[in-house]
């Protein structure tokens, strides 16, 4: 056991703290488009300091950070109260996927504009009738000369209104395969230019009132064959690479954000009773202690998972448990907040009210809690699929 950082890691952490303190962004504008531009500017600032893609290899313009350093970066980003860069999908998902599967031409064209926030990305995986079931993808791509002609609908495409590119999975095999035993075989992974004719983006408003996601409609959109990633019919494998990258660094960011929310809640709960820096209501204290315990466990689980990956090349059970525990903990936190903060958590426009509503999505987005439990039972405990 050694739960301290190496001198190099400590130096990196201190470098980041100093840099974040000096470069903390201003408060975000209220307007949605302006807020996006503000986060884009933040990414450019990070890029200027070589911090936009710390985990990217140096050959692609990154810093070549180790997994631990990447974790430290996301912890410090969260701790500084700074936002994620604008194109987190490009930086965490599209970029690493292209590095593995992309052609030289694709890498040369697409990677540099991710880092410098000149072109951003969205993800076209989910469909209205597919949900968590990748094999049910119905969006069709039919070869026509040197192009593929694509028609279909995608949902939950966050950032689509700002994206130049889309990671698109479509069915190039027999449509009858959808949902069948060969359902994963006929899938192909494309890079879609969002400015192509036939692409339509419609905002999908959430229960928070914010259009955080979009629906994406594709009507006979032409994609050149050169935009296929990883070969025709290989889309399932390529998409898995994308999905595997999804939560690596984010787990650290989310865990620190949870810690910050909890600290704000504890501070208020202690102040509210207000005698001597303790929480006067033992029932609230009991709940807050449990939140504190879970949040600390999430931090430790994230680091334990990293040790497993660094030493054995594969994650332990920590990763699969983390998403589930995080979403549940965040949902409990906002409910305790509703009790402690009263009105503030129930009045439109107040940050805690937004959190109360937004947290309901935590156990759905990025794989529902039900799916996470299946994964833990089947892949970690080895229980039979049926």
């Amino acid at each position, binding site marked *: 056991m050694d739960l301290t950082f190496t001198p190099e890691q400590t130096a990196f952490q201190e470098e980041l703290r100093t840099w974040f303190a000096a470069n903390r962004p201003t408060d975000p504008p209220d307007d949605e488009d302006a807020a996006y531009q503000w986060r884009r500017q933040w990414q450019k600032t990070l890029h200027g300091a070589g911090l936009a893609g710390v985990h990217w290899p140096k050959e692609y313009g990154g810093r070549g950070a180790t997994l631990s350093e990447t974790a430290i970066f996301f912890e410090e980003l969260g701790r500084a109260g700074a936002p994620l860069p604008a194109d987190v999908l490009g930086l965490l998902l599209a970029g690493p996927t292209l590095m593995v599967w992309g052609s030289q031409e694709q890498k040369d064209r697409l990677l540099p504009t991710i880092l410098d926030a000149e072109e951003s990305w969205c993800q076209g995986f*989910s469909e209205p*009738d597919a*949900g*968590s*079931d990748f*094999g*049910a993808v119905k969006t069709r791509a039919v070869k026509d000369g040197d192009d593929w002609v694509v028609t279909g609908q995608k*949902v*939950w495409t966050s950032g689509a209104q700002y994206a130049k590119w889309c990671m698109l999975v479509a069915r190039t095999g027999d449509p009858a395969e959808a*949902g069948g035993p060969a359902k994963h075989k006929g899938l192909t992974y494309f890079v879609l230019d969002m400015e192509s004719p036939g692409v339509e983006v419609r905002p*999908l*408003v*959430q*229960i928070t*009132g914010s259009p955080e996601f979009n629906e994406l409609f594709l009507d006979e959109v032409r994609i050149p064959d050169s935009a296929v990633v990883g070969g025709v019919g290989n889309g399932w494998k390529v998409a898995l690479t994308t999905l595997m990258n999804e939560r690596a660094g984010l787990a650290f960011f989310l865990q620190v954000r949870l810690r910050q929310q909890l600290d704000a809640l504890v501070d208020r709960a202690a102040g509210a009773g207000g005698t001597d820096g303790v929480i006067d209501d033992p*029932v609230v204290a009991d709940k807050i202690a449990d939140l504190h315990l879970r949040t600390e466990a999430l931090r430790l689980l994230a680091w334990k998972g990293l040790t497993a990956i660094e030493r054995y090349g594969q994650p332990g059970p920590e990763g699969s448990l983390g998403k589930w525990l995080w979403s549940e903990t965040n*949902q409990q936190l906002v*409910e305790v907040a*509703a*009790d402690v903060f*009263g*009105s*503030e958590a*129930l*009045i*439109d*426009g107040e940050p805690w*009210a937004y959190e*109360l*509503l937004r947290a*309901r*999505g935590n*156990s*759905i*987005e990025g794989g*529902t*809690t*039900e799916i996470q*439990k299946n994964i833990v039972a089947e892949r970690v405990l080895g229980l039979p699929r049926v």
Partner: protein
Amino acid sequence: MRFELSEDQQEIQRTARELLAERSSFTQVRAAGEARREDDALWAELRDLGWPGIAVDEAHGGSGLGVIELAAIAEELGRAVAPVPFLGTALAGLVVQHDASDGDRERWLPGLASGELRGAVTLPGDAVPVPGASDEGLVVVAGADGPQLHAPGSGVAVAVDAIDPTRGHGRVTVAGAAPRDGGPGGGLDRATIVVAAELVGVLQRALEATVDYVKDRKQFGVPVGSFQAVKHEAAQMLRDVEVAKVLVANAAWVADAGDQAKLSEAAALAKAAASAAGRRVSAQAIQLHGGIGFTWEADLHWLFKRAQIDAVLLGGAGHHRQRIARYAVPRAAAAV
């Protein structure tokens, strides 16, 4: 021992449900919610039908019926997330009628019964957005020494946009502790039961919508409702709703039977159960709808948002559980 509404009571409930299915569909709720404007036409119609005064004494312009009938109507209004200022007005009527002075009864009940005057009830020291509280209406703060009545224009209520946009809310900041009992004449207890009844209606609707959805929606080639995890979560929702339902029904009956000794305990049990179920069931409804359930379009959020307010209005589950514990002790001492 007959644990169901009487024929007359069932008729009241059925009529309310049919009227609101027509007049407070999700399309209409959406129109009101998105505009943040209550449905004045619907409210006028309900006033004409005498709903606001259903449990107000006939001497003061009401129908003189009981908490059972009022709760049945509140449940239907909750089920429909009806965009009208019914709840606050009915609650104020109960507290004024049972806990206030004769003079206050004469002064305020006729207006509340006709719905001409809007009302709202809250606890001192509470910071919850209060449905119906506005400077144009009567604001009742039900304190330990009985209700304080704040007349229209008193400025005690400040309008706020609560997360439930289907009716108006006000913030009422009055210091003091919430009373341990339920009002000198049981008015606050009765009001608490009626909030719980509205909440049960909201949850019943959320459960039904969820069951319909998971029967219909397919994933991995089968209805999601055939997955055992979904089944068990739906079963848990039903259990939560049923537990709240029987405790609310019992409390309403205790209120109308005039069993003052048991009223506070019964009311606390009803609200504790409904408040706990309120958060769990409305959240689980979204969960079992998956991504769709998290969209503005899916209409579940009207239910979720009203449930969040009702769950804390006149005290949340934790507040009422502390009260219940006090009632449990003498009960045990008598039994052991």
